[in-house]
């Protein structure tokens, strides 16, 4: 089975903070987040990536950025890649999401 991983290895899969310990199952992977908002953001993002690519599963996501600038990301699945940018409100709602060529 392929499991979803990110480049954040220290703590929260979205923001890498080590405060908090909140788990949510996403794509068969029990993922660690700092709080429910980071989990919501991550889950919404994964769903949006799947919607835009038609992929059923994602293997790995590389995330760079933060709340202020938004995040530049690349998702990988079965040797294919998809790059995108997204930004959210502090309550987790998506503010912007766009494909990057």
């Amino acid at each position, binding site marked *: 089975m392929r499991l979803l991983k990110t480049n954040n290895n220290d703590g929260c899969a979205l923001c890498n903070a080590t405060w908090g310990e909140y788990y949510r199952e996403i794509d068969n992977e029990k993922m660690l987040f*700092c709080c429910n*908002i980071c989990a919501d953001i991550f889950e919404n993002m994964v769903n949006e990536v799947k919607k835009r690519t038609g992929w059923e599963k994602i293997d790995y996501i590389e995330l760079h950025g933060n*709340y*202020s600038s938004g995040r530049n990301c690349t998702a990988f699945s079965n040797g294919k890649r998809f790059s995108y940018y997204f930004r959210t409100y*502090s309550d987790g709602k998506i503010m912007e999401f766009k494909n990057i060529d």
Partner: protein
Amino acid sequence: MECPVCIETFKHGDFNEISEHFTLMSNDNDSEHISWLNNNISKTKLEKNELSKLFKRFYSCNDIKLWIINKFIEQFRGERPHPFILMMQDYNPRILKGYSFEHYFFLKQWVRSCSSIIASTDIDEIQNYEIENILSEYYGHDNIKPHIELLLEMAESYDIKREDIYNSRPLPKTEMAIKRWQVMSKAKTAVEMMAAMHSLELIANNDLRSYGAKYDYFNLKMLESSDVPDAVKSFLMEGYKADSHHSIDALDIINKYNSDIEGIQDSYLESAFVFSKYLEARIERGEIIEDKQQ
């Protein structure tokens, strides 16, 4: 000492208590407290003693005016500015439309906060400052239109009727901020409330770069662009001029009557916390207006 996020109170100057509070809240995975820690103290989980030391450093202050300016820049106009500031670096009618709605409600509360300061002091300098502030924000003086009128004229330049603004309700983030300012104006001293409100005017201060700000309030090229309606230029320009001396004059007064530094810091932080949410509401409202038009 008070928690900037939830306003729980602790013993004066007790960094152990506030550290313990944040540790407990993060153990409960509370997103607001964790996010505040990430942004202000550390993204790495720390033992209580270590955390307490960092809190002490965070609050350490030789000059309350500079302390507030530095904290403000870091949160809103520094290396990682507020998303609203980033969006104002381009001409973006959607954001300005959202601004028109939410700021109307902000200004309605603004004048109440200023009045509460007048009511809670007998220091002439403070009362006169607030009266002048109310005139320029709300009533006008010497043939200069008040800020609230310029705001409504900006809205009209985008074909938004005043009545639509009067008849709308603030978004939840704005409402939450207004509620906090109402609670604060009953509990805080005049000087604390001045720190809570007038520090926020640093958002538009045109001299903030000299203190280390990395971004202007908005892209100054907008003032010369023929794409931008005159009413929008007038609104932005007036705030830019007025808020600069408003914020710095207020900080000088706060500095002069700073008998309780910690109370001023608490008050500033509690207000900045909700102000950040309120700025998001301006963006969110812009998005709602745009969705309706499609």
